[in-house]
């Protein structure tokens, strides 16, 4: 193995961190938990700027707002008593599913979003919660997670650092669910989905849907959400959702499965998440 690095810095402020990254770019990388960076041992990187002294390891909950520092470990989210209860426990469950325990004890939320995989459960959950990401570039900016994921390299190579993730919790009565298809229980999902639903009787007031595994990062499904709002949710609706997704997405083939199977499973998985969120939502 072996990774020949020339330098390692552990700055105490966000500004020092950015200055160091700028000074050594393109050979410097920001080190959060390191579970991806150290595993990859990219030979073009020879300076590491360790963010662990930045005091960004916190979870604060004030009224209906949740603030999670970028250096917060996934396990801190997974086992957080309030996050296990709030919003149907969606964030805690997503953190738990995102990686096995020894990785959760190292990996951070900021790092997870910075390198978000196609099936990151945390990215999916945070997309339907309409999370915001606080970035430190030359100034401080707040962008939506959807925007951040779509333009991730632009934001991070500015250079920029993720400082915090913010979520406004949904109103009481919403239903949430995560669903996935895996080859084995311990494997990463082939596809997965998250749903957040408000209902009134048998009418779907609004739905937020996100799907993972079909594009390089998880995405929301805004057109489908718009069409579903105000409609009855019946078996036929779920079948239509499933078929519509199957015909509109164009996922890749890889070593886990073919594009065809992934496309078919994407439709079923989104419909399954939607159904489960619907069943969990309060009727009025």
């Amino acid at each position, binding site marked *: *193995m*072996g*990774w*020949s*690095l*020339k*330098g*390692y810095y552990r700055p105490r402020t966000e500004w020092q961190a950015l200055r160091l990254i700028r000074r050594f770019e393109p050979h410097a990388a920001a*080190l959060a938990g*390191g*579970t991806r960076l*150290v*595993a*990859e*041992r990219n030979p073009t990187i020879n300076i*590491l700027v*360790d963010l*662990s002294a930045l005091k960004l390891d916190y979870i604060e909950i004030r009224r209906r707002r949740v603030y999670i520092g970028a250096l917060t470990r996934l*396990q801190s989210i997974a086992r957080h008593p309030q996050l296990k209860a709030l919003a149907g426990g969606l964030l805690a469950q997503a953190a738990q599913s995102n990686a*096995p*325990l*020894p*990785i959760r*004890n*190292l990996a951070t939320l900021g790092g997870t979003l910075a390198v978000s995989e196609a099936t990151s459960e945390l990215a999916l959950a945070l997309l339907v919660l309409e999370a915001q990401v606080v970035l430190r570039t030359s100034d401080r900016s707040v962008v939506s997670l959807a925007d951040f994921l779509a333009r991730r390299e632009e934001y991070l190579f500015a250079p920029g650092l993720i400082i915090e993730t913010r979520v406004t919790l949904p109103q009481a009565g919403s239903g949430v669910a995560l669903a996935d298809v895996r080859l084995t229980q*311990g494997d990463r999902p082939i596809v997965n989905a998250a749903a957040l639903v408000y209902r009134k009787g048998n009418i779907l007031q609004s739905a937020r849907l996100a799907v993972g595994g079909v594009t390089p990062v998880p995405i929301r499904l805004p057109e489908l959400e718009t069409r579903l709002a105000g409609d009855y949710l019946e078996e036929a609706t779920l079948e239509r959702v499933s078929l519509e997704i199957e015909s509109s997405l164009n996922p890749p083939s890889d070593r886990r499965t073919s594009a065809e199977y992934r496309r078919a499973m994407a439709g079923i998985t989104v419909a399954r998440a939607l159904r489960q969120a619907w069943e969990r939502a309060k009727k009025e």
Partner: protein
Amino acid sequence: MDILLIINGEERQVAVQVGETLLEALRRLGYVGVKHGCEDGSCGVCAVLLDGQVIHACILLAVQAEGHAITTIEGIGTYDQPHPLQTSFVKTGAVQCGYCTPAMILTAKALLDENPHPTEAEVREALSGVLCRCTGYFKPVEAILRLAQGGG
């Protein structure tokens, strides 16, 4: 660079390369109970405890562990005075080739320290970070539950 590591309760000043992983550093220092496997955090045989929490030593740089407490299998029991988990593994027949056993025991220790009476599902979830290529999960799960239920 020189860093302070607290290994099995002993403070050690250790000279490490910046790019050296904790796995490489520990094995170089003689803690060979930490096994070398996939090098990318998939297989889990390099598990050690960092401040009591189980982590993969192959994807953590030694410098990241500076000032932290590390527990390896050498720190929890000896041949003459085995840890109760080690005794339970032996009694239950939970050791096959043995390569993943230190990781299984350390993972179980972290679990039981936090949750002395886990359910089978919780034991399996905790062990999901360790791959046993003998596919021997049944007996380790049994050994951990047996100890947790007081049957060591």
